[in-house]
């Protein structure tokens, strides 16, 4: 006597039932397949976009920025950035060095400027940086399209510019670029590198040059900004800590600086999960329906199986295993289809939009999403198969046989 319900005989009976109703079984498999495929494609695509934006925006910009609070009189002279005094900078440096969630920080001298090439003129922003510090903040090597990275800024008159800005100004690596500062000072710099973060809002305006050079041009020894990279980005307690300890500074964090992107990511997450769940629910309901009908139609057979010695547990297994087989087939096929479609999307070329600069759609092929999709698919089928199976197992043979 087979002690376990999982045995060849019960499996054989289940398979016989499945293959006797090929069309229905196939439809159920397709239902799960569609659910899992959509889930995987959606999540691959949505998280791909999220990751892309995260990577471009949050790796290209600091998690926390510190500026000096502008006094009313400074505010009226809009174009002049306010300065963080050197004593304050040293004090903040000390605090940041001790803070456990600070991965790196860098000082910057930021100034608006008019950028002029041989043919064009645009307003832009100059980021005066200290190459050694900035290297820990931004991985520019990965973003570099042409020329050299931060190390070239040890040369006093070099400048790195974003790709969109370079295009608009019609300049290339090696060309010269004239800058006009708010105080009227002018200087001609040499473009030593062109980078792209993939986001127009950055690539259109950002430049990097030596902070020392900029300080000399602006005739000052102070900095304007302190940028902080966190170890755990979600944990921004350092912001409140600084606000409570140091006065006269204003502090911004990545969440409020990138509200639209943070909200966009959230919306995409919610969409992905709700659509996927809705689809799996529909697939699950399909399976429930099919199995439920089978159980109703097959009550007589179930009664016979019980008469000849099959237990309630055998009957549950016989029906549940049908759901599991449908779920497994649908989920595994769905994972392959999902991969295929995601792959096709990932090689589809994309017209560069105003916002994003990419060649193809960003897709995240993380294996755990495939596992999750398959697990969800199987879980839904088991759940939706359980109730009809339970119903089958409580069929009372006497009632059924009498009723015929």
């Amino acid at each position, binding site marked *: *006597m087979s002690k376990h319900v999982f045995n060849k*005989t019960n499996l054989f009976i289940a398979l016989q039932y499945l293959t*006797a109703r090929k069309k229905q079984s196939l439809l159920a498999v397709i239902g799960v397949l569609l659910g899992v495929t959509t889930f995987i494609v959606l999540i691959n695509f949505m998280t791909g976009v999220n990751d892309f934006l995260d990577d471009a925006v949050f790796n290209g910009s600091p998690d926390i920025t510190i500026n000096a609070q502008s006094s009313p009189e400074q505010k009226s002279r809009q174009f002049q950035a306010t300065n963080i005094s050197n004593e304050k900078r040293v004090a903040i440096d000390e605090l940041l060095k001790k803070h456990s969630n600070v991965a790196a920080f860098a000082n910057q001298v930021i100034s608006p400027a008019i950028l002029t090439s041989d043919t064009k003129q645009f307003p832009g922003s100059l980021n005066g940086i200290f190459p050694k510090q900035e290297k820990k903040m931004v991985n520019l090597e990965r973003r570099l399209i042409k020329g050299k990275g931060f190390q070239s800024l040890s040369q006093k008159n070099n400048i790195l510019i974003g790709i969109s800005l370079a295009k608009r100004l019609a300049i290339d690596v090696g060309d010269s670029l004239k800058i006009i500062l708010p105080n009227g000072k002018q200087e001609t710099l040499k473009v030593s590198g062109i980078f792209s973060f993939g986001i127009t809002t950055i690539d259109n305006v950002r430049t990097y040059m030596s902070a020392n050079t900029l300080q000399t041009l602006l005739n000052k020894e102070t900095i304007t900004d302190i940028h902080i990279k966190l170890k755990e980005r979600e944990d921004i307690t350092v912001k409140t800590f600084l606000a409570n300890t140091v006065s006269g500074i204003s502090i911004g964090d990545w969440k409020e600086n990138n509200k639209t992107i943070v909200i966009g990511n959230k919306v995409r997450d919610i969409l992905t999960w709700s659509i996927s769940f809705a689809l799996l629910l529909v697939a699950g309901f399909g399976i429930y329906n099919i199995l439920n009908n089978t159980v109703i139609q097959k009550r007589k057979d179930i009664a016979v*199986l019980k*008469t000849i010695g099959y237990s*309630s547990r*055998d009957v549950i297994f016989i029906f549940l295993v049908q759901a599991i087989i449908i779920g497994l087939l649908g989920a595994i096929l769905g994972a392959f289809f999902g991969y295929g479609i995601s792959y096709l999307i990932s090689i589809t070329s994309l017209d560069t939009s105003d916002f994003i600069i990419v060649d193809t759609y960003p897709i995240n092929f993380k294996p755990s999403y495939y596992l999750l999709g398959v697990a969800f698919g199987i879980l839904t089928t088991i759940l939706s198969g359980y109730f009809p199976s339970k119903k089958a197992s409580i069929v009372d043979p*006497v009632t059924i046989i009498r009723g*015929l």
Partner: protein
Amino acid sequence: MILKAKDIVKYFMDPEKHQVLNQISLAVSDGELISIYGESGSGKSTLLYILATLDMDFEGDLMIKGQNVKEMSSTALSDFRNEQIGFVYQFHHLLPEFSVLQNVLLPAMKRNIKSMEQLREEALILLDEMGMKAFAERPSYKLSGGQQQRVAIARALINDPALILADEPTGNLDSKNSEMVFELLQEITNNRNKAVVVATHNSKIYANSDRSLEMIDGIIRLS
């Protein structure tokens, strides 16, 4: 003694509490063919379902092969039915998704003590004795009523149970097929030495059984 029932009482609650079996006692030994007859509604089927352990909601004692079935768990009862009881219905009740041979094999596959090859061989021998070997590979629904009933008898015998119960096994058959089924039941009793209890309206059967019991309003009367 294969089966010993003592003071079996059965009530139905629908539409109100009413007694259907009234203190039935019955003993059946190996190689004995017992028929139960009586008016429609007298309680024959009700008794057979109880003897088959399909209906456990009754009062009184039921011993089969020396075991008190009331003391068994429902899984143990399933196993017990599988090994010790063969049941034949009025309507043959083969599973249409399965071939004739597979239908006969289902109880044996559940029992799972012999190799598949051996089981097939035994099932084919049984089908041969029932005159059904030629149909072994057919889907079971492509058989006549009489043919299906013979397959159902083969299915009841495959695990070599001690007790065969049949509820109007000829109720749905013409006289020729009825005769054939009755001969099979007699053969099972005499040559295989099994205890057979048949509920029937067929006078030929109750006239030719080892013992015939008449059932009147839930009471058994020896005739």
